[in-house]
């Protein structure tokens, strides 16, 4: 893409969002919508200006829950995927259990975590972990196994070692799949953390939305959602950046 085309595109996108904000503000004002029902952008900006440090505190709480849950999911997910691919006993026991559990609405377990590990940050981390685990395991398994059988033969004609096959072929081959899993998992981890806060939160953006709701402080709830959007986008962006950095060869680069 040429520089001029790219600038044009960026301008169009910015113009669209600025126009949408003005339309929103104009509609709320002209229709006299009460602020407790649907706040205008200006109300939200007021809350941001006034409560930014409080907002940031709650954002950091949710961020910590999400990141820890995601990190545990990534670590254990990779271990599970490698184990299932390499050990028939795990493939026949752990794998079907994971598939079974995956088709189950995992978020329904959230209240039980409160009983098992309390109302602190740990139950939110557990929630984020649980929902983020599956896409990583499933994509990891696919990445480790969905390889051209002739390529496997080519390498086996050089070495019988499973270690060689793993390090030289399976692992690098699995990385794009793993990143695809991470992109899903990071968004799910945010949901897990927020639901955890809904159930037993004392802090965090989910807690904030719920308590603002209880006082009909809709502007505050909207502001919390605004921080939540920014946080989710930043997390997703980090995964994309890591992917670009680690997989410079990947297809994503090929379109240009």
């Amino acid at each position, binding site marked *: 893409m040429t520089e001029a085309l790219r600038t044009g595109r960026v301008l169009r996108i910015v113009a669209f969002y600025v126009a949408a904000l003005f339309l929103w503000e104009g509609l709320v004002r002209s229709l006299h919508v009460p602020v407790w029902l649907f706040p205008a952008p200006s109300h939200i900006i007021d809350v941001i200006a006034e409560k930014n440090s409080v907002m940031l505190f709650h954002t950091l709480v949710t961020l910590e829950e999400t990141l820890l849950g995601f990190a545990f999911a990534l670590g254990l997910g990779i271990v599970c995927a490698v184990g299932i691919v390499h050990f028939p006993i795990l493939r026949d026991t752990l794998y079907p259990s994971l598939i079974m559990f995956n088709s189950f609405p995992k978020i329904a377990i959230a209240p039980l975590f409160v009983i098992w590990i309390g109302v602190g940050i740990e139950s939110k981390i557990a929630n984020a972990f649980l929902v983020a685990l599956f896409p990583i395991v499933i994509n990891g398994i696919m990445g480790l196994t969905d390889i051209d059988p002739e390529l496997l*033969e080519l390498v*086996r004609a050089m*070495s019988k070692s499973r270690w060689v096959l793993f390090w030289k*072929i399976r692992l*690098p081959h699995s990385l794009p799949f793993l990143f695809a899993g991470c992109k899903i998992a990071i968004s799910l981890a945010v949901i897990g953390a927020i639901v955890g806060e809904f159930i037993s939160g004392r802090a965090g953006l989910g807690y904030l939305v719920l308590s603002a709701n209880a006082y009909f402080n809709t502007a505050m709830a909207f502001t919390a959602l605004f921080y939540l959007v920014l946080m989710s986008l930043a997390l997703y962006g980090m995964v994309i950046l890591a992917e670009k950095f680690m997989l410079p*060869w*990947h297809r994503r680069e090929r379109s240009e």
Partner: protein
Amino acid sequence: MPESIRIERLCKVYQARDGTEVEALRGVSFTVGRREFVSIVGQSGCGKSTLLKILAGLLSKTSGTLSIEDQAVDGPRRDVGIMFQKPLLLEWRRVLDNVLLPVEIYQLNQQEYEAKARRLLSTAGLKDFFRKYPWELSGGMQQRVALCRALVAEPSLLLMDEPFGALDTLTRQKMGFELLRLWEEWKSTVLFVTHDIDEAVMLSDRVLVMSSRPGRILDAYAVDLPRPREIFAKDTPEFIHFTSRIRRRLWQEATDD
């Protein structure tokens, strides 16, 4: 001539997915001399690939004997290079690192062989592509990289399973001559599987004709055309003499049943 490959009464029966037994090879016997270029032609599904995979140590034989460099084959060997119809390059590695894959797996001297890999790639006309990723290359170039990879560890035997089968006719002929040039320089034994009779005659010292399943060797033709070969040899009566005899033999076999 010292032998590179000796195969005697080789049979292969394997279990198909539905449980029935399929006889892929029946009593295959032949020898290939050291540094000889031998092609096997036959219909698809005649067991050519099975034969190659047994030689590569990827499949076990059912009965018979086979040896490479006077050693019975019982698994993968370091001195055997292999090349398939697909380039099978690792898309996360640059061209040079793709060529060096066997060097890493065999744990050979990295520096020494990197120089070798660069020389090979330059000979194959890929001097400016060392740092490219496979997807930046055309199909023919990818296959040349695969050829360099098969040659880098200096195999004494190169097994090729329809290596140019996916390329267009012109590229395919060019690749054939490039292979010959590299072969004349590195001088390994080549066992080349193809269904293209012209290609087999153009490249080989000897052409073996294989029957349809179960695969047997029907005939062998010593191609005593002068080397180095060149493309217009195709139009000579000597060349056509070989291709038409081989074509007749294959046709006769194909229409027998």
